[in-house]
């Protein structure tokens, strides 16, 4: 099974970090000194000292829009063994969710992370649900030790782009028979 998933990752090998529309990234209930950039951005996320931390309570709501439509294959969540996320719900193409309406919609996928997963292992998602993703909302519901603060070191997204027309590549048909 693990071999299969490893192959799957090799096929859709793109790390989707380059396709994130940074101007639209939002995170609710993050602490100001430990913001979502620490978990998502190149360089910051590889530094284990820099975390995304929650503020008022242990839940986090992260909204990530993409520059183009993608298919999401798997997700990598790295965190400390104790305060790392446990239950993570993913919603595709739902804009501007709030903590009050997270439970109104069924999640596209729900992942319960084990401490093993928190070491940075890719967790395969229900690929069929993530075929046409413009934006992703990650709702971290609780953490491993049920503490007040949830800490996340890295969030990585793996998938492929949907074949879209590259407007620059369009050429005028020459009408000179």
């Amino acid at each position, binding site marked *: 099974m693990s071999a299969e998933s490893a192959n799957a990752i090799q096929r859709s090998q793109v790390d989707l970090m380059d396709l994130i529309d940074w101007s639209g990234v939002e995170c609710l*209930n993050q602490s*100001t000194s430990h913001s979502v950039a620490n978990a998502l951005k190149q360089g910051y996320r590889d530094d284990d000292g820099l975390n995304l931390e929650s503020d008022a309570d242990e839940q986090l709501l992260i909204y990530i829009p993409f520059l183009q439509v993608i298919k999401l294959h798997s997700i990598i969540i790295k965190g400390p063994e104790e305060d790392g996320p446990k239950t993570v719900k993913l919603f595709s193409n739902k804009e501007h969710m709030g*903590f009050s309406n997270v439970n109104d919609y069924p999640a596209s996928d729900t992942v319960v992370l084990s401490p093993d997963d928190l070491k940075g292992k890719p967790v395969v998602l229900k690929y069929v649900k993530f075929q046409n993703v413009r934006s992703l909302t990650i709702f971290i519901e609780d953490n491993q030790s049920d503490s007040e603060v949830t800490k996340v070191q890295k969030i990585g997204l793996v998938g492929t782009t949907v074949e879209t027309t590259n407007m620059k590549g369009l050429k005028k048909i020459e009408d000179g028979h």
Partner: protein
Amino acid sequence: MVLEATMICIDNSEWMRNGDYAPTRFQAQADAVNLICGAKTQSNPENTVGVLTMAGKGVRVLVTPTSDLGKILACMHGLEIGGEMNLAAGIQVAQLALKHRQNKNQQQRIIVFAGSAVNHEKKTLEMIGRKLKKNSVALDIINFGEEDEEKKEKLEALLAAVNNNNSNIVHVQAGPSALSDVLISTPIFTGDGEGGSGFAAAAAAAAAGGVSGFDFGVDPNLDPELALALRVSMEEERARQEAAAKKAAEDSSKQEKGGEEPSSSQDATMTERASAVTSEAENKSIDFMDDDNALLQQALAMSMDEPASSHDLRDTDMSEAVADDPELALALQMSVQEGEKDSASDKDMSKLLADQSFVSSILASLPGVDPNDPSVRDLLASMQNQSEPEQKKNEENKPPNDEK
């Protein structure tokens, strides 16, 4: 210039009938709300503002967040006072209204007018605060009306729970200044950035003059003549009061130098005539600077024990001169008016007048003025005093005063 959706929570409970904020607490609150709405919509045209009432039969949303200022102001009419304020429910409903705003890119803000006492537990308020923080809603609390330590503590705890760097609390005491005036200088207004503070400055200037933002309570656009008449009479009154105040202040020194009064009143006359010939702008400069330097000269005179304060007395005795001469009175009023308006040419004119030859040539051309008259010499000396407050020309004052 932050793009923001704001919900304003108004307290329309029975406690708002109190008149410790002029004219009533409720009216002061309404004025403040109008100001805030204006400031928000001006600082960014896409900002929206909504209003809800917390007391009455229950929390009621009067208008959902909109950028239409007219709608907001209209809904403030016909509001009834009654019931008890429900702060917790008010904030929660405001949060809900903001959640359903049309433009999700706007930052969320709640402004609460906490007038009556707060009956909720501190814990309840803290929980509400934490919820606001979690949903990144900023909170501004305006604590006015009922004053007690417990209320203050609870509101501070609520603010601490929200703990946003955008959130503020303002405590407004009852007093002569209006609620809106106090608020203008707070971060609630100035936190809006450039646009908001520009509006706020204009509103402050207007509000300083009158009630509903217009000078003297009359719209210059609607009724310019009335506005002008009110302004003129206001300034006349001010001038009269200034003269009376100077006179009262000078009473003590007057007793020492009583003999100089007649010469001083003549000086005043000279002042008026000389200036009337050259320009009225000059006149105001003399009067203006006389007022300013009066106290200085008085102090210097007393320390130097010289009768140099005749010029001071000249100011106060203008009122006597006024009584003698109705034309003079008119000129005086006009000059004071213009003196209030523009003091830029002050320095130029006084330099001009300091040029003794120039002044004496003018005076010579005036009918009934003898340049050798001691009072004229007094006047010339005072011209120079204004440009040189060190009073080097005191000697010139002595001869005329000795003669009197």
